[in-house]
């Protein structure tokens, strides 16, 4: 995992359900610069398919997907595991999503 919680570039979407993790990722992407690397933390099973699909559809690059250990997350035993999705933004190919009411605000 690059960075820890609260670090710039880390989007903590744990506890959020589909489609919120991808919406949070898109919001962070809109604030970040072209070429920046974002790390999404998510425990929603749907993120496993939806984050790679978002990257494909928006032209970003999925660098890695890592299942986080309980120690890395410093969460209580028994809590659902989360994954870290590391994404490099490529904004040249992707249009703004704000015109259609998607989460630009």
């Amino acid at each position, binding site marked *: 995992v690059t960075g820890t919680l609260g670090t710039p570039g880390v989007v903590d979407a744990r506890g959020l*359900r*589909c*489609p*919120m993790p*991808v*919406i949070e990722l*898109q*919001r962070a992407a809109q604030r970040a610069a072209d070429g920046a690397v974002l790390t999404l933390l998510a425990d*929603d*099973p*749907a993120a*496993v*398919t*939806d984050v*790679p*699909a*978002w990257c494909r*559809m*928006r032209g970003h690059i999925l660098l890695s997907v890592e299942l986080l250990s309980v120690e890395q997350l410093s969460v209580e035993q028994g809590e659902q595991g989360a994954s870290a999705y590391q994404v490099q933004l490529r904004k040249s190919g992707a*249009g703004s*999503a704000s*015109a*259609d*009411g*998607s*989460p630009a*605000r």
Partner: protein
Amino acid sequence: MGNPVGSTARPQPPAPAGFLDAASGEPLHPAGRAALLAALDEGWADPARLYGAGRRARLALDRAREQVAAALGCRPDEVGFAGSGTEAVHRGVAGLALGRRRVGTHLVASAVEHSCVLHAAELLVAAGGRSTLVGVDQAGVVDDAAFAAALAPGTALACLQSANHEVGTTQPVEAVAAACAEQGVPLLVDAAASVGRGPLPGGWSALTASAAKWGGPAGVGVLSVRTGVRWRSPGPADSRAVSGPGALDAPGRPDVPAVVAAAAALEAVVTAAPVEDARLRGLTDRIRATVAATVPDCEVLGHPTDRLPHIVTFSCLYASGEALLLELDRAGFAVTSGSSCSSSTLEPSHVLVAMGALAQGNVRVSLPHGVDPADVDRFLQVLPGAVQRVRAEAVR
């Protein structure tokens, strides 16, 4: 009993306005309805009995079996009836596995089979067998070479759908059937999504279908097994036919009026299919193109050409599938979704996952026989606004 199938020439009345979920089951076809009403009077008795009413029920059942056999391209004694498409699949898989238990306990299936096939496979695995699931490409097409390579000396049976029920992609059944034949492995084809929707693939050893999907009653499934294929009825023995017509039927007395209705509806849709399928394909082509052009950040799924005529599926970024279904329901449209939030678990549809497709904001549109094109136009007008509202709601 009269000949209710004289009604095949009757123009098909449309399903209820806005009903675009034919793949979950269509309303009863008028030919099926007429046959059902006639059979309730004429075919109510136990077809195993020798008195007049029993013989009349038996004749009706025999005729229904002939109609279904003609639609599937097989012999009447190769057709069995079950209580649902799911039961037909369960009996098909379990019965083929039983027939091949000395060969082995390995099953090969595609990763995008209907859940009833995967559940039947899980039961074999729980009993000590093993299964191999063969993957698909981004369009949902099974890799036929990988499927062939998965067949092994201990493979008891293989399962491949004729076409996918969620995204409409048709599968390379004949190539897979050839590979199976070469190795002597029976192939069960779940044709529930395809029967009554154009030509069926050949080469299958067993085929299953569900009457509700073609406009028959919900309580009728079909399991057809080719002569010479080793299949043994799973579960306790039944005192009804052990060979000949009826040997493949689920245990117990069949619901003759429902079976008669299912067969009449099937004959009617198969007769109308050449014209109707082309009409529906034109409509789904229009939906695919219009959705891609009018809904931003949307992915139209499934193979663009190798697909069923009536199914279109798409996914929208930043939208909840459940919210989108409810929004479309408010606008008068019945559709369904493979998104995780509209399932009983948090998992998205295994089909969408296997394809690597976007699963959020997923909508499946499936056109019933006789759908009014104005319904499709109205859907396409309403959809972009519905997606926009659901996206705005999510970030409020």
